[in-house]
């Protein structure tokens, strides 16, 4: 059945992780590549996201770390000459790129076949007007939207529809530039923004309060159709599905509603002509069977990744095969392996997806959630009751919640308002409202959340009230304890409700656990088998529940398995890189003859693909659940060092409970994690570190600052609002921060460290065995210290370090490795000024940059580390990093455009949502590739510079000269203008927003899109500077103009695009750089 002419295909990836486009596309791309490989088809991948699994050795045959843009894709097509291209697996980025290539006739020119859904069908779904027309043809109701091309027409359309209306930018990622408008004023300001993303803006009637329902549909070229899964949003329409809690399958639909929408979905998909996978979203009236189709995504999406994990049906894999011409009946159900892929999974559990936000990382950001996406990750919880699933999920999001109840009290000023205007805290506001005596009806009225969900949440509250009445575990009846566990209560929640934190919660939690086990109340393991137990399935896809009495799995107890703890929800600071680490650790474990067991709950990941391990527990990474699994599995040991901070934090507790932690001991991990222990160790080893103190009074803070001098880095242990860390440059700033933002006391000490300016930041990623380093990679930040290492642009191998500096760094790393007797992965961060080296941080686990250095070196550090940890022999890599005759650059991706009002400035707290890694023959080429990959464009003509302090102005001088020589027009604000003129660089003066009477205005030029690149370096923290700078920066983001806020990065970027053009960039695949 397959198209035999296809010998080589090109797959477009989605690039760096960003809000609205995250790890789900690594999963779908990897699946598609696997499907191609199985057919013996050669695969070429373009994706600059070096931390992904799909860009690993053996997944694709050729990998290009290049921007997914029409220019670069065409170059790769020209070079590789594939016969087919896959556009549906790299999110909106790949789809948009594909549509553009199609329109430019590139596919025709190179005789390239688009596999799967034809491009015309994609365009029919992407262009709203075409879409509505298309569905009108088959009498399917859509949200009638008025496509407009200017603001006047937008106003007219809104007036005719009546407010409230929703506006969206056409062809935009997950709702970018969209929102609700209650009146004309809001409409004008929002449509201005929307027009900056797209020439077409859509005005629609708002259906706020309707249910939001989705169907995942698969169709083959013989017109056979199935709906693999449907999903229902807990939050009604008005909140982007990426911002909503979602359950699968739908819970409040009757048979007739479920099948009405299912039948429509199939009708739509047939009419559009999808081949492969697609997603249909509906608005559904809660008081009748009326509906509107919101949109159709003619590609794999976040929802399809969720649906794959929710059902066990590998949508991307199947879609890829259908693209090759297979029929659904040709393919097998990959879980049962006996029944066909033409079927619709029957679930016997409920899954609950909950978004993870990180809004507290951003200054000034609006906390309200709505029609545009802000969340950075998500979790999926599986249970056999809604209460169980949602309580699990609320623990999984990893923001300190223990479930729906028994959390730290939150302060809600106006509950009614917070219920009506939801924020990222909505679910906890509902909990609070129940505590305050609100009824289900009241909450429903304010939130429009279906009462069924609210009733279930109230069950949890009622049970918690019953437990609260109990004084000690002895008077806790089995029936109540069982019910609580069936409703997803953790031992901690039960302990807190009974003992009310009067005794150490760790102790009472342990008491409850022991008591519970004595009473025989333990969870059971259930399989996810796609057919609700109708057919026997050899599935290794598992979860735990208290709503059951029997295990599906027979345990061998042979101690031949190794558990790997995954990384949990993607968030700022921990994302796909730890998935790569987890997957590679599992692979190595399995290659060495052990059974690899994974625990993780992130539906966007490859590590939660049940093909990746011998057993997958899609469940919590809490101490309680990990121990439950440990007791069932009886493994040889556990790996806690490849999943980032969550497993790392569990190490000590697990070790104390008798878990065999493989590799570096828990005690050593604790020595590196505990600030005091680590610091005194460094002192003992005579290793320098920035001076710091943990202090409990303001007076002590000031006297310490007298010694070390400003600026200082301040880290309060208890934060009232805003950022958790701050750099303070003078007394007033320090006072302001400590008085307003934090609370200094004996109970909440503050850590103050000296902050060294203009120092280089250097990192070492390494693997050691028994305290001896076996592999290492030293890399250098482009930016000076002060920019979080997760936001910094990293260069590897370092190009500008003194030999002496690297020698000293190696020496220090060796000492630390020896002292902590490290066996496994670790990372140390250093400050260097001249050859003066200070250690700032040390993590005895894999770091964010492990995939980057592993791939640039082509030495898999995780494979080595895993072998060390399980005691397998390995070959010590002989080649030194300095032998590389190319350069790798890791650049960060920011998602400020989605975070309304957030100040797009870099600081000591991390703000980037993703990264790319590109390789070039020299720094310039690598920088240019990397910057283009994270969305920068080479400016055409006009550049706006406001360059901060005199030091930063000087830093930019060479670059500014170059720009001028290259014929760029420079526009500069006051001080920067003066500085440029003084240095004989022609520039035009533009005025700050605080000086509105003079022309030209910097802000206006941005709004009129007269500027191609904005370089805005924040100078200091005075109010007027902050406001001026903020307005410029924010406008750049809102009007989609590239912005750089760091002088050293700006210089590096400018020098790179002045030294070479886009056509000078070499189209070289990964293996062309690395040849032995």
């Amino acid at each position: 059945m397959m198209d035999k002419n296809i010998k080589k295909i090109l797959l477009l990836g989605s690039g760096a992780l960003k809000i609205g486009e995250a790890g789900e596309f690594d999963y779908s791309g990897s699946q598609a590549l696997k499907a191609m490989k199985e057919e013996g088809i050669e695969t070429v991948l373009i994706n600059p996201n070096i931390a992904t699994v799909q860009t690993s050795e053996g997944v694709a045959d050729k990998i290009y770390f290049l921007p997914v843009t029409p220019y670069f894709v065409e170059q790769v097509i020209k070079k590789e000459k594939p016969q087919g291209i896959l556009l549906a697996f790299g999110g909106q980025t790949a789809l948009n790129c594909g549509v553009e290539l199609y329109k430019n006739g590139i596919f025709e020119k190179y005789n390239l076949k688009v596999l799967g859904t034809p491009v015309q069908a994609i365009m029919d779904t992407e262009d709203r007007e075409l879409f509505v027309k298309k569905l009108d043809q088959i009498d399917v109701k859509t949200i009638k939207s008025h496509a407009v091309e200017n603001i006047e027409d937008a106003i007219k359309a809104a007036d005719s529809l009546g407010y409230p209306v929703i506006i969206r930018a056409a062809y935009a990622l997950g709702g970018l530039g969209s929102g609700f408008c209650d009146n004309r004023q809001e409409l004008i300001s929002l449509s201005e923004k929307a027009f900056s993303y797209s020439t077409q803006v859509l005005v629609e009637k708002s259906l706020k309060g309707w249910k939001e329902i989705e169907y995942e549909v698969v169709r083959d070229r013989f017109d056979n159709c199935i709906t693999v899964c449907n999903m229902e949003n807990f939050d009604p329409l008005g909140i982007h599905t990426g911002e909503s809690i979602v359950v699968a399958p739908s819970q409040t639909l009757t048979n007739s509603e479920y099948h009405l929408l299912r039948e429509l979905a199939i009708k739509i998909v047939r009419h559009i002509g999808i081949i492969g996978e697609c997603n249909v979203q509906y608005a559904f009236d809660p008081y009748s069977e009326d509906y509107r189709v919101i949109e159709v995504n003619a590609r794999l999406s976040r929802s399809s990744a969720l649906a794959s994990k929710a059902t066990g049906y590998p949508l991307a894999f199947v879609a890829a095969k259908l693209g090759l011409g297979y029929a659904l009946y040709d393919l097998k159900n990959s879980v049962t392996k006996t029944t066909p892929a033409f079927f619709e999974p029957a679930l016997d559990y409920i899954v609950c997806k909950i978004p993870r936000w990180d809004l507290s990382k951003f200054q000034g950001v609006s906390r309200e959630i709505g029609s545009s996406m802000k969340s950075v990750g998500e979790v999926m919880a599986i249970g056999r009751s809604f209460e169980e699933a949602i309580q699990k999920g609320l623990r999984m999001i990893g923001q300190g919640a223990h479930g729906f109840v028994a959390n730290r009290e939150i302060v809600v000023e106006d509950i009614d308002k917070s219920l009506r205007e939801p924020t990222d805290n909505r679910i906890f506001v509902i909990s609070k409202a129940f505590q305050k005596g609100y009824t289900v009806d009241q909450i429903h009225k304010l939130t429009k959340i279906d009462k069924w969900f609210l009733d279930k949440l109230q069950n949890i509250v009622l049970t918690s009230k019953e437990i609260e009445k109990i004084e000690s575990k002895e008077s806790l009846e089995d029936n109540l304890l069982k019910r609580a566990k069936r409703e997803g209560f953790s031992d901690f929640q039960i302990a807190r409700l009974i003992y009310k934190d009067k005794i150490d919660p760790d102790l009472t939690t342990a008491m409850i656990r022991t008591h519970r086990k004595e009473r025989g109340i333990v969870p059971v393991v259930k399989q996810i088998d796609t057919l609700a137990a109708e057919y026997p399935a050899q599935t290794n896809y598992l979860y735990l529940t208290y709503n059951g009495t029997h295990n599906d799995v027979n345990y061998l107890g042979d101690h031949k398995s190794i558990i790997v703890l995954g990384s949990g929800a993607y968030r700022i600071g921990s994302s796909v890189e730890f998935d790569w680490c987890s997957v590679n650790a599992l692979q190595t474990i399995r290659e060495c003859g052990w059974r690899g067991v994974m625990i993780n709950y992130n539906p966007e990941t490859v590590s939660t693909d049940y093909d990746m391990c011998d057993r997958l527990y899609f469940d919590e990474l809490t101490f309680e659940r990990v121990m439950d699994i440990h007791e069932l599995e009886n493994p040889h040991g556990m790996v806690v060092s490849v999943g980032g901070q969550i497993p790392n934090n569990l190490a000590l507790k697990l070790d104390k409970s008798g878990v065999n932690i493989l590799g570096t001991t828990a005690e050593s991990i604790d020595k590196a994690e505990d600030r005091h222990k680590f610091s005194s160790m460094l002192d003992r080893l005579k290793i320098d570190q920035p001076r710091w103190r943990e202090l409990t009074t303001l007076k002590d803070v000031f006297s310490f600052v007298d010694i070390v001098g400003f600026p200082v880095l301040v880290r309060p242990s208890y934060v009232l609002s805003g950022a958790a860390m701050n750099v303070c440059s003078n007394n007033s700033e320090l006072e302001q921060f400590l008085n307003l933002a934090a609370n200094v006391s004996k109970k909440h000490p503050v850590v103050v460290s000296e902050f060294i300016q203009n120092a280089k930041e250097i990192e070492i990623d390494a693997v050691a065995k028994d305290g001896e380093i076996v592999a290492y990679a030293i890399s250098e930040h482009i930016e000076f210290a002060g920019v979080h290492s997760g936001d910094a642009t990293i260069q590897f191998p370092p190009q500008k370090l003194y030999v002496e500096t690297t020698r000293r760094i190696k020496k220090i790393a060796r000492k630390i490795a020896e002292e902590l007797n490290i066996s496994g992965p670790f990372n140390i961060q250093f400050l260097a000024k001249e050859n003066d080296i200070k250690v700032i941080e040390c993590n005895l686990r894999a770091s964010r940059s492990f995939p980057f250095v592993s791939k640039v070196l082509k030495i898999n550090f995780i494979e080595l580390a895993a072998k060390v940890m399980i005691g397998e022999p390995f070959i010590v890599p002989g080649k030194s990093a300095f032998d590389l005759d190319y350069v790798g650059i890791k650049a960060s991706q920011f998602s400020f455009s989605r975070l309304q009002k957030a100040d797009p400035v870099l600081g000591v707290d991390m703000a980037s949502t993703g990264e790319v890694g590109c390789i070039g023959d020299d720094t310039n080429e690598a920088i240019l590739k990397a910057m283009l990959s994270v969305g920068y464009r080479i400016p055409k003509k006009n550049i706006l510079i406001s360059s901060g302090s005199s030091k930063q102005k000087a830093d930019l001088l060479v670059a500014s000269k170059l720009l001028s020589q290259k014929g760029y027009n420079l526009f500069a604000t006051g001080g920067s203008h003066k500085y440029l003129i003084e240095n004989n660089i022609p520039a035009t003066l533009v005025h700050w927003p605080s000086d509105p009477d003079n022309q030209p205005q910097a802000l206006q030029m941005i709004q009129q899109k007269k500027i191609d690149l904005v370089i805005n370096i924040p100078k200091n923290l005075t109010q007027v500077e902050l406001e001026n700078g903020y307005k410029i920066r924010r406008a750049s983001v809102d009007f989609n103009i590239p912005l750089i806020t760091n002088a050293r990065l700006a210089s590096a970027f400018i020098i790179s695009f002045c030294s070479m053009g886009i056509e000078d960039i070499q189209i070289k695949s990964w293996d062309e750089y690395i040849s032995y």
Partner: protein
Amino acid sequence: MHIHKPATLHLENGDEFRGFSFGYDQSVDGEVVFSTAMVGYPESLTDPSYSGQILCVTYPLVGNYGVPEDIYKNNLSQCFESEKIHVRGLVISDYSFRYSHWNAVKSLDQWLKEHKVPGIFGIDTRELTKILREKGSMLGKITLDGDDLKSIYDPNLENQVALVSCKEIIRYGSGKKKIVLVDCGVKHNIIRCLVKRGVEVIRVPWNYDFTKLEYDGLFISNGPGNPDFCTETVDYIKVALQQERAIFGICMGNQLLSMAGGAKTFKLKYGHRSHNQPVRMVNSDRCFITSQNHGYAVDNSTLGKDWEPLFINMNDGTNEGIRHKSKPFFSCQFHPEASSGPTDTEFLFDDFIKLL
């Protein structure tokens, strides 16, 4: 909170599951079967094909959207599949005490009470399903503590069709063409599907001699239990096979038509009861997701020489429909009328109407 009596589900093989009683507080017995449908309990419970059976629903959350009001239009229930609940007992995991839906008027619990049907919740329905899958459908009983049943009723020993079929002729709809519908336990949606296509439906009891009636097409309905009890019906169908008028059968109708054509049926280990059964039309690329509810199947190898399989189950290869090689006779084992379940195959009603 809700006070619910402890209850136990006992299986014929000695296995026991502890839970709590809901619905009508009474012990009950029957054949325990499972369905993997995720929606549609009001439709399923009123499906006459479940007569004599205790139904285990594998989807754990049940009762979410309550039960709608039973409105009759032209002698037909608008929301249900018959006049009453036909299952003898209901086994679930997690019951939603409070429901939420605009068209609901009562809870599942209340409805079961009204129809004197017991239910049990808090059961590990997945484990129960695995037992039924491995050991086959078996007899069982739900007992309240202190209220045991001495023996267990075996519905397979009784003619269930006779129990659920209408007792006299009922007419529905109007149109130029007349269809005789042999009621072996017909679901109302079958009648709705026919009537809305503009034909008159004459519903007759399972053992009625319809051959004397004037009609354009014959329809043989679904129904519960063992088809071997319906020898009378089969004999009448044999007469119809001598003629040229169109015949269409669903579920039990497929089995009876096959038997009239000379084929044999057998009892499946645990039956097909779900909304996700894949079938393929023989000699084509066309596949459909179907709603099914049957414990017996037609043995393909015994089909008479004039007959051929029309659909095949893609999971286990069993027969899902037959057609006559030359005459306008066909039938399907699945439920094209759905309700509950997917509606992919409703076109078969159109096909039938075209043959009249």
